[in-house]
């Protein structure tokens, strides 16, 4: 089943981007996490009709993506895949809120279209920031950072285990689905065979978990993954966080595009 393989390839692509040695890869993961969270809070804190003032925020994901050489195409494709829910809910705004909010030249623009545009922008900004965070950091450093910021280790361990075995079990699922497809002669998978198929996948997963656990216990596992990675907070990390947060505060409190437009004489 090719879509399982495609999903796994997607999962791997972001992580492999983070492995490369870019200037951003050396920034402390905590700094990137904090800056990204500040970014998201700043973006969603605008009121529903804001469009222009959101635009400067595009600098954050764009600059980070450029520094880390994250391919645009990958980001855009992921954005499009994730879009439906926000777009569908947002599409009701133009229908429900038709009071004109502003006039462009001589064309009145309704509040609904403004807020719809705002939702699309928010969506693109917040999602691309999260994707860029992963693509420049990687899950493992991110989990170390989360642990340092007080997230229970049970949860960060869980994330790491999940990520590692997603490829193993995803591959298993893909092979099982392909094997069924080859024997099914084009018939769709029905519930009657779905139970045993997924059930077998579950049993294999459980057996694998048991083997993994025994192997880990044999190597001295006591229920906790230990990190050899030392996080060191340097001046560069402080500059990174303070610089970006300063920019977010500025862009949040001053409508930069408006100001630019007035300077440009419009």
């Amino acid at each position, binding site marked *: 089943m090719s879509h399982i393989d495609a999903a796994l390839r997607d999962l791997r692509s972001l992580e492999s981007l983070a492995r490369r040695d870019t200037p951003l890869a050396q920034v402390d993961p905590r700094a990137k996490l904090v800056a990204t969270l500040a970014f998201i809070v700043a973006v969603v804190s605008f009121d*529903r009709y804001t469009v222009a003032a959101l635009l400067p925020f595009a600098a954050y994901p764009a600059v980070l993506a450029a520094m880390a050489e994250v391919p645009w195409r990958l980001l855009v494709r992921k954005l499009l895949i994730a879009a439906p829910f926000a777009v569908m809910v947002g599409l009701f705004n133009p229908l429900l809120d038709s009071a004109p909010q502003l006039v462009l030249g001589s064309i009145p623009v309704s509040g609904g279209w403004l807020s719809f545009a705002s939702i699309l922008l928010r969506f693109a900004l917040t999602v691309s920031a999260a994707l860029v965070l992963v693509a420049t950091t990687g899950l493992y450093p991110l989990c170390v950072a989360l642990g340092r910021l007080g997230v229970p280790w049970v949860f960060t361990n869980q994330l790491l285990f999940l990520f590692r075995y997603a490829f193993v079990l995803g591959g298993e699922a893909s092979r099982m689905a392909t094997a069924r497809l080859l024997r099914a002669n084009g018939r769709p998978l029905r519930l009657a065979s779905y139970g045993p198929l997924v059930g077998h996948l579950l049993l294999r997963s459980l057996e694998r978990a048991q083997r993994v656990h025994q192997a880990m216990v044999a190597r001295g596992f006591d229920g906790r993954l230990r990190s050899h990675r030392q996080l060191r907070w340097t001046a560069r990390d402080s500059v990174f966080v303070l610089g970006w947060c300063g920019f977010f505060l500025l862009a949040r409190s001053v409508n930069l595009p408006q100001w630019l437009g007035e300077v440009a004489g419009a």
Partner: protein
Amino acid sequence: MHMADALLSPAVGATMWVASGALLAFSARQLRERGEDHLVPLMGVLGAFVFAAQMINFAIPATGSSGHLGGGLLLAILLGPHAAFIVIASVLTVQALFFADGGLLALGANIFNLGVFPCFIAYPLVYRLVAGAAGSPGRIVAGSVAAAVVGLQLGSLAVVCQTVASGISSLPFGSFLLLMQPIHLAIGVVEGLATAAVVLFVRRARPDLLAPPPVPAAAAAPEPGMLRPLVAGLAVAAVAAGGVLSWFASSQPDGLEWSIERVAGEEGLPEAGTGVHGALAALQDRLSFLPDYGLPADAQPEVPEAAADAAWPVVDPGTSLAGVVGGAITLCMVWLVTLLMRRRR
């Protein structure tokens, strides 16, 4: 259905983060205190299993659509609610990070909607009651379907409440509810059947996995009772926090602030050509990091009223045009900066 950052206000997002985070910490402590640390590798592999299983779809006859496992309920049946909650939270986190499902701010809401309801409400209060301890096949099917339906109905209700409380979407509560609940009724039935199919298979193949659930029966029995006050307390805290925050937000100038401030700021900004100083002064005024979201109850009547006439003259075509031109300039600048950075390397 994943909640999205774009539809959330910071107050609602933060409230859900606090609620989900507290439950996550609570579940992690429960696991540790019960000495169930050995579950950790099992949980990790099962998280990966849910991840993989969600990608296998089965055809629903005569509809042309397909369904798959949600995972939360099945995990709760296999692992007990606490471990299941941590696993489902991790699956949602990986989906948010790598597949852009929802987003980071919405992650708290998604963990709450898709994790808390199936693990802490649908499983102990519905599945265990209906399916019983031994569980005949019929009761397992009935229990799974009932629990999945209850879990998803609560989850989609929560999505509606969070969206409406955030006030970014204009959908009124009633219509959104009518849109979401029937869809999730159907999804719930399908997910319940899928869960039952897998549970029945496991029951035939490895009854030992289901008979003594990893949570010892003795410890599990008082659980719902013990949890209910916690969940209720969290719910009350969440509602109270949301209410207080939204009251703050709506006491700020709202809705029209966007255009009014444009006009007011017009004189203030160019004159503050000294840049930083003016910006900082303006910043201090507006540092209230709350959006002007009001519950639609306030917002809905307010907008049409204001729309009538009094407020609209405030809209200055010149101002709006400046916004568009400036927006284009901003985007060009961002684009140029990134272009230069790519070139340089």
